[in-house]
C-alpha cells in the first residue's frame, strides 16, 4: 500500500463501531484477566500492570499465539457458550 493508501485509511477512520459478534472477547481461546496476564507475561507487573487503562481489553489468543485486541476476530473463533455446552 502506498503512502496515499495509508492516508485513505486514516481518512476512513471511524470514531467507534460495534465489534463483530464473533470477536476475541466472546471466544474461548482468548484470555485477558489482569491476574492471568501478569502471570503469563513476565515483568508486566514490575513496571506496569494488568489492570492499567493503556492495556484496554487486550489479551492472549491460545490458538494463534498472539496478543490481540478484544475486538479482533478470525476464522478460528469458538464461542464460549458453545464450548460450555460441548466441552
Amino acid at each position: 500500500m502506498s503512502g496515499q493508501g495509508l492516508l485513505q485509511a486514516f481518512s476512513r477512520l471511524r470514531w467507534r463501531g460495534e465489534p463483530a459478534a464473533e470477536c476475541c472477547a466472546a471466544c474461548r481461546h482468548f484470555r485477558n484477566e489482569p491476574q492471568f496476564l501478569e502471570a503469563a507475561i513476565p515483568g508486566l507487573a514490575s513496571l506496569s500492570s494488568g489492570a492499567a487503562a493503556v492495556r484496554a481489553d487486550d489479551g492472549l489468543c491460545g490458538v494463534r499465539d498472539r496478543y490481540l485486541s478484544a475486538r479482533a476476530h478470525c476464522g478460528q473463533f469458538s464461542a464460549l457458550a458453545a464450548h460450555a455446552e460441548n466441552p
Partner: protein
Amino acid sequence: MTAHAVPTAAPRPTATTGWRELWLKEDWWAIWLGLGIVIVGYILFLNGASLKWIAVTPEKWSSLDQLGAHFANNALRYLAQFALWIVVFSVALSALGYPARAFLPSFVFLYVFSVLIFTLGQWTQANYYNLEPPLVALLLGLLISNLIGLPRWMDAGFRVEFFVKTGIVLLGATLPFSLIVWAGPVAIFQASIVSIVTFLVIFFTARGLGLDRQLSATLGAGGAVCGVSAAIAIAGAVGARKEYAPIAITVVIFWAIVMIFVLPIVSRYLLLPAGVAGAWIGTSEFADAAGFAAAQTYGGYASSASGIAGMPDQAVWAFTLMKVVGRDVWIGVWALVLAIISTTRWERDETGAKPEAIEIWRRFPKFVLGFVVASLIVTLASRGYSLAEFNKAVNPTLVAPIKDLRTWTFIFCFFSIGLTTRIRDLATAGARPFAAFSVGVVVNVALGFILSVFVFASYWTNLTR
C-alpha cells in the same frame, strides 16, 4: 523463561472498558483514592483542621534515643496510617479482582520495610553515605527478590503501578495548575521530539537487524513513550506474537533500572539545576515508577548537596510534566497510528480488527486526569493567598500532609519495583532486540540532555510556585 501457554477451557474474558473501567481499571481507583485524600484534606483545611496527624513521617534523627522517642510518641499515628492504607488499597484491589486475603500479609511486610527505609533516609548522615530512600528501596527489593526470594503470592501487595499512579494524583495537589499550563506545552514539544526520534531509531535499527515489524514497533514504543505500559499497549494494537511483549519488557526493565542510577549520578556530577535534571530524567527514563525514583533521588541531592541550584520539588515537577504530560498521554495516539499501519500495510486482514479513533480514549492513562484535577483543587483553594500567607497557612496544613502521603506511596512503589523484578523470571530478550533498543537509549539520552540542558533550560530552571 517464555510466556506461559494459554490454557483451554479459559474463563470468560473480562470487559473493562466503557463505564465499567470506572471500577475495573486501576487508573480510576488511583483517581478515587488520590482525589479522596485531597478532598478530605481540603474539607479539614476549611474547618481549621488538617491531615497532618495521619500523614506522619519519620523525623530527622541523629541518635537512636531520638528515634525511639519519635516512634514511642507517634505509634498510634503510624498504626492509624497503616490502617488507612490497608483499607483503601484492599477495597480497590478487591474491586479490581485481586485477592485481598493475599494482599493483607504482603502489605504488612511492605509497610514495615517502608518505615525502615524512610527512617534510614532521615538519618542526618544518610546523605553522606548516599542512602537516598528511592535507591535504598530499589536495591533492597532487588536483593530480597533475587537472592532470598519471597513466595509468589506476596506479589499481591507489591502493586508498583497502582502506588505510583496514586502518588502522581497526590503530586498534582502540590503542583500549581499555572505551572502545568505554562510548562506543559514546552514539555509536550520537547517530549514529542525525543519520542518520535527514539521510536524511529529503535524501529529502523530493529528492522535493519532483521526483526519483524510488530516486534520493532513494540520495542520502539517501549523506548519512546511509557516503557512497559507502552510495550504492552502497542503489542495489543498491532497484534504482536505473544513472545514480543515479554522481550520488550525485559529490555525496558533493564534500561529503566540502569537509568535510575545513571541519570541522577551524572546530573549530580554535572551539577545540573534540579528542574533541568528532572526534565532530562523525564525525557530519558523509560517508565513512570523508575523515573520517579530517579527524580526523587535527585531532589534529595538538591536538598543536601552544595552546588545544585533549585528546590528539590523542581526535579519531581519537571520530571512529571515531561514524562506524564509530555509522553504518557500520547500512548493512545501511538496505538491508533500503529494499529492503522499494521492493519493496512503490515498484515492486512490478519486480525480482522478495524482501528477506531476511540482507541485514543480507551488507552488514555486516566490517572493523568486525577493529577490535573488535584492540581486545580489545591490551586483554587490557594487563590487569594499571598505567597507568604500560602507558606504560613496553606502549605503546612493542606499541601505538606498530602506531599507526605505521596512520599509514602512512592516508597511503597520503589520497594515494590525491586520486589517484583525477578531477573531469572524475565524473558530472554536476545541480542538483536537488546542492540536495537540500546541504540535508541543512546540517542534518547543524548537528545534529552541537549534539549533539557541547552535548548529549554530556562523553562526547567525557573519552575517555581
